[in-house]
């Protein structure tokens, strides 16, 4: 009998079963259930059950991040309604406007732990995989169902194992690894699957970088992505006295649907062009594309590590005339740390605009919406047509260093010209 994957182990534990296999359907009880502004929709559906509060308010997390501070009077009304709801229901894990992006807070505030199961009314809930958890997105009504019953059905996914081999080159970041994978897998290459990252060189990749990988897996259709907790996790989370055990990693003889070695040395700074995630080419192939806006932020790449990389590129430089550089830290903690380190000062001196922590313009609601014919290079996760505003705008996706270099040059630019030492 072969061993189990980490996805199989987590879903077995969450379903109260000894063991499950890929392909089985389980009734799982999540350790955390997440929603953001769509808590309004969750509550609307939940109210139909006639229950006064969720099955376990301590396992409910609510974050206001998508339109913060409120962009319209209607949003302000929704925010107020959600504040009233969490108070009435005794939901303690509530993060109001300005505290940050939900996926960032789950990890940063250490709400999610290795081996945990998180479901959330947001597609990027897979980001929790960075700390060895199984995170997956659901719709708002299904989250209301979890509030009511404490469980939901999940098909145990097959696992695609990807082993990191070797070290990253200068000016190459986890975002470039993710874009490389997107170019290979396309938008549905991992549909319904778990992507598990492994290999001894994973040591190199910080929790922040792991969040990028797990976050972007959704753009390839993955149900979840998991980086099993290892020594890098243990060092990041010293208060977790017990080192993560076998329950948090795949057995050596686990059955993977596929196993692929990914050679880090072969990855260069990459850019995904409009309007498809898999339209990925090496940065120098986009050298003639002029930009109007450069955006650094989002649940993909708005962390301290990302802001530091951008500040190294920007230090002592000015952004090009006519270009807007917009930076939105992923959380208040990220913002505070970046302030302490002088990173924000560097960005502002270079001509950047700092937004409050939150999702920013990524979803096209506010704070940097694109007009017709405009071009944006973004550290976010989606370059769908119309995503950030006008259908006639174009979005390029890249690492924060590449976005910062592009802001200086006024066109899609190679970060290796500006990052001349290893970070």
């Amino acid at each position, binding site marked *: 009998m072969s061993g189990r994957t980490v996805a199989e182990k987590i879903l077995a534990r969450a379903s109260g079963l000894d063991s499950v296999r890929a392909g089985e*359907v389980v009734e799982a009880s999540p350790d955390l259930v997440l929603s953001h502004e*769509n808590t*309004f*929709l969750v509550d*609307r*559906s939940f109210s*139909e*059950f006639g229950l006064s509060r969720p099955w376990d308010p301590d396992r409910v997390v609510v974050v206001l991040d998508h*339109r913060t501070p409120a*962009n*319209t009077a*209607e*949003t302000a009304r929704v925010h107020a309604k959600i504040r009233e709801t969490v108070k009435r229901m005794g939901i303690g894990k509530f993060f109001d406007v300005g505290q940050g992006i939900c996926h960032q807070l789950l990890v940063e505030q250490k709400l999610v732990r290795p081996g945990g199961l998180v479901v959330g*009314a*947001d*597609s990027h809930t897979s980001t929790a995989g960075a700390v060895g958890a199984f995170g997956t*997105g*659901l*719709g*708002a*009504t*299904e989250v*209301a*169902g979890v509030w*009511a*019953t404490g469980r939901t*059905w999940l098909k145990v996914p097959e696992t695609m194992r990807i082993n990191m081999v070797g070290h990253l080159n200068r000016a190459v970041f986890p975002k470039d690894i993710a874009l490389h994978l997107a170019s290979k897998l396309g*938008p*549905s290459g991992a*549909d*319904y699957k778990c992507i598990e990252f492994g290999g001894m060189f994973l040591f190199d990749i910080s929790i922040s970088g792991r969040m990028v990988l797990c976050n972007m897996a959704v753009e390839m*259709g993955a*149900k979840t992505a998991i980086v099993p907790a290892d020594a890098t996790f243990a060092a990041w989370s010293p208060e977790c006295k017990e080192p993560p055990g076998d329950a948090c990693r795949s057995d050596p003889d686990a059955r993977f649907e596929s196993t692929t070695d990914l050679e880090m040395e072969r990855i260069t700074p990459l850019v995904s062009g409009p309007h*498809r995630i898999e339209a990925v080419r090496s940065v120098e192939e986009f050298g003639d594309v002029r930009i109007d806006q450069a955006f650094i932020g989002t649940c993909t790449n708005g962390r301290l590590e990302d802001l530091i990389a951008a500040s190294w590129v920007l230090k002592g430089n000015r952004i090009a005339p006519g270009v807007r550089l917009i930076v939105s830290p992923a959380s208040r903690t990220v913002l505070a740390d970046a302030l302490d380190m002088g990173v924000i000062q560097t960005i502002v001196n270079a001509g950047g605009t700092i937004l409050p922590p939150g999702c920013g313009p990524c*979803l*096209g*609601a506010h704070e940097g*919406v694109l007009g017709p014919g405009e071009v944006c290079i973004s550290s976010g996760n*989606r370059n*769908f*047509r*119309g*995503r950030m*505003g006008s*259908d006639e705008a174009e979005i390029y996706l890249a690492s924060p260093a590449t976005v910062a270099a592009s802001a200086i040059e006024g066109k899609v630019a190679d970060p290796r010209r500006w990052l001349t030492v290893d970070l």
Partner: protein
Amino acid sequence: MTSEGRVWKFGDDVNTDMIIPGRYLDRYDPKHLASHAMEGADKDFASKVRPDDIVIAGKNFGCGSSREQAVVALKESGVSAVIAKSFARIFYRNAINLGLLVIASDSAAEVFKDGDMVAVDLGGSAVRSKDGTKMAPLHKPPERAMAILRAGGLIPYIKSSLGREVG
């Protein structure tokens, strides 16, 4: 469970930003959402779609954001079923949970064209043109999905099970 209507064809990887762009999500009003349905893919869709029309698309329909307003926009505009080569998982679950019929078919996107009048026959696991000249087999939704659909969506489905537990 049957459905009859006129076909609207779309390609692969229709994402939820195309089905309902993020800028319209400020306001949750099904009619407002329906008035912008499929705006990112076909600007005429919302004004020309008729009750019972059927969307037929390629692979990975509904990829991207988990916004269930994508399902609400389609349902409120009168779409009675979405048939696609494959579905992105969150959209698929949302559709079932909100009572919109979604069915996978390997060949429907090749067999049918815009404007065809078709009938979905779930019992016979096929979609056929009304004139009887064309047919594509369907993969019947899994039993659990069918049970939720038959109940009219997740809320009534859970309500009946809560009732059983209490009763």
